[in-house]
């Protein structure tokens, strides 16, 4: 496969993952603003931070309003992580690597772009938000379905999956990092209803508020939430799950090519540490420091994959 094609697949799936993630963050933000009576600007501040675009927002807007924040996350081209920017970039990459995709996968991607482009042509009204969020999730689901149902399990599949999980791990780590103060124990507000909303919003932004209840008990506990999103190998957005997938896909490539790169070491080390460290160790050492280090290792892994598989040269 061409290095450029591997690069296109990797980024196509990173962008689609990110689009869905931005939509989920908006969803969580909307939910939070519904559960309180006073102004919800503070919540949107948190959402923008989780999406990693708080500073970018300030470059474009003078004040923070929920309408502007939603628009910025949803359709502003000045925000490279907005849903529409990501769908466009994902589709652009898909078009470039079209020969590597099945017709079903390509068409699902193209139709996603066609529908959302029309839907997001104008600033969305609050009343339309549920429908829009739903359409984004549905379209992303259709791409995933076509991809899983029709693609050969070969190197094309591996690079696509690696892109998905590197992006997802990054997103989950960022969400936790931005909210880590909420999870810090022994804060006076623990147990108050506001806090519960904050905790739930973390779970909601990774679509895990129901699953949490199945795995742990009904009560939201900071350590359990962190455990769920970091170490729980069954939770499809947890760091451990992402790294199991990354390691297994890199493993297929290593066997197929009879060649290992620095990326293999990095991914395996990260996975080993995710498996061995208990959540209380992590919380004791400092969740923020842990996540910061994780995010930088995850970036390094992306770079090592780019170099090892000759994405650019």
């Amino acid at each position, binding site marked *: *496969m*061409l*290095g*450029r*094609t*591997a690069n296109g697949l990797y980024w196509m799936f990173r962008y689609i993952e990110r689009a869905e993630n931005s939509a989920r963050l908006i969803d969580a933000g909307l939910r939070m603003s519904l559960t309180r009576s006073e102004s919800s600007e503070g919540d949107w501040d948190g959402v923008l931070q989780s999406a990693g675009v708080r500073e970018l927002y300030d470059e474009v807007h003078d004040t923070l309003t929920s309408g502007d924040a939603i628009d910025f996350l949803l359709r502003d081209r000045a925000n490279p992580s907005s849903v529409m920017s990501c769908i*466009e970039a994902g*589709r*652009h990459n898909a*078009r*470039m690597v*079209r*020969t590597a995709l099945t*017709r079903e996968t*390509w*068409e699902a991607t*193209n*139709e996603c772009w*066609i529908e959302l*482009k029309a839907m997001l042509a104008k600033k969305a009204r609050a009343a339309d938000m549920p429908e829009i969020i739903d359409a984004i999730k549905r379209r992303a689901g259709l791409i995933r379905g076509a991809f899983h149902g029709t693609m050969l399990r070969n*190197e094309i599949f591996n*690079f696509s999956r690696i892109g998905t999980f590197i992006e997802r791990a990054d997103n989950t780590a960022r969400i936790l990092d931005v909210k880590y103060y909420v999870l810090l124990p022994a804060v006076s507000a623990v147990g108050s209803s506001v806090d519960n909303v904050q905790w739930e919003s973390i779970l909601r932004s990774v679509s895990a508020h129901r699953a949490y209840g199945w795995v742990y008990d009904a009560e939201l506990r900071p350590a359990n939430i962190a455990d769920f999103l970091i170490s729980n190998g069954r939770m499809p957005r947890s760091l451990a799950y992402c790294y199991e997938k990354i390691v297994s896909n890199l493993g297929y*490539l290593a066997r197929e*090519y009879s*060649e290992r790169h620095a990326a293999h070491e990095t991914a395996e080390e990260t996975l080993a540490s995710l498996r061995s460290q208990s959540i209380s160790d992590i919380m004791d050492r400092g969740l923020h420091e842990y996540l910061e280090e994780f995010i930088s290792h995850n970036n390094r892994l992306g770079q090592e994959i780019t170099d090892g*598989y*000759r994405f650019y*040269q």
Partner: protein
Amino acid sequence: MIENKGITPLAFDEMINADSSPRQPYSTYHQWYAGQDRNRLIAKSKEAENIFRKTGITFAVYGHADSSEKLIPFDLIPRIISGREWRRLAQGIEQRVIALNAFLDDIYHKQEIIRAGRIPRELIEKNDAFLPQMIGFRPPGGVYTHIVGTDIVRTGEDQFYVLEDNARTPSGVSYMLENRETMMQMFPELFHQNRVRPVENYPYLLRQSLASLAPPGCAGKPRVAVLTPGIYNSAFYEHAFLADMMGVELVEGSDLRVIDGKVKMRTTRGYEAIDVLYRRVDDDFLDPLTFRPDSALGIPGIMDVYRAGNITIANAPGTGISDDKAIYSYMPEIVEFYTGRKPLLENVPTWRCSEPQSLKYVLEHLEALVVKEVHGSGGYGMLVGPTATKRERAAFAEKLKERPGNYIAQPTLSLSTVPILVNKGIAPRHVDLRPYVLVSDKVQIIPGGLTRVALKEGSLVVNSSQGGGTKDTWVLED
């Protein structure tokens, strides 16, 4: 009964005779059509548009973002050619393509046609499309034009003319294939009732044809790749489509590098050699070391690899000299010179304004002629006499007198019509035809091609950039 209103009285309609009966090749189709519900057809037409849009069969408009990808309108009434008509066309095209290759070989070697005084020397040597780098070099298999798209127009039952020989990188073949695919999806019954010759094996034949002309330096199974200028090129969809259908890599200049005397592509496991490159990049951009130094689309040094016999480039660089407008007017002489026979397909009569007698005729008949710049394309710098104003004609006459050698003139042809589906039923529109030809050790003409149709009533302009659409083109077995 099918309405027959609005046909230009002079135009030959391929479906309906003057007495409103269907022409023979269309008789089965016509009967089927008579039993169709108009609203269902219009709904089908929208369905076809959706298929094209979701498949992404689009062409880009230069200088715009993704939002300006355009669809080429597809009309669902097929253009039907009888087996007898096709045999005649195919023989004429084959003769012409053989002559084109012989001409190119001669021009880049002994230049006997010039020595024989049949073509003026300056016409070749002062032509930008002539590449001195190709002198004395014979491409693998002696083939210059691997893929040709011969544009043909019809003006009557037995009158066919070649309008252009596209011998560089003819485009549009993906539309031929997708149009057929769409028709078969929407109207399977039509393909039971009519014996339509298949076009679907084109990608297979193309790959086979390209692989059969691997260079001498190729050991083992030839590796074929399609070279595209990239995702922003207007025909990118077609490049990706062909690579996909052939099962070969779609590469860009930045993927390729000359290493150890071979052209190699950067893969996830290192550099791998390519033997045959189907390039959809113009000559000028192919090799910045040889041609335009500012080209970012090409591969530095590929011409050296080519001349050393380590890669096949399809079509060969320098083939543009054979489909130049100035050369076109000499095609009858060229065909006769190399095949020893009169051309089976006619050229559109062409006056070369460089010749005083022709210039005099053209100036006297401007209102009936189309005058084109020799090196122009896309309708620029052109005068369409019958629709131009008196003042425009007078102004153009001055330009003509100033630089007569820069112009050729042709009569305005009354192109044949085929009906298209409109809101009120069907209505005739002018069409042309581009069959696709593959050249290896044999000449293969795909039975069908791209029919372009001018969607505007009365218009003769079939170009997709100016409101043209396409039709599925059927060649019947008979």
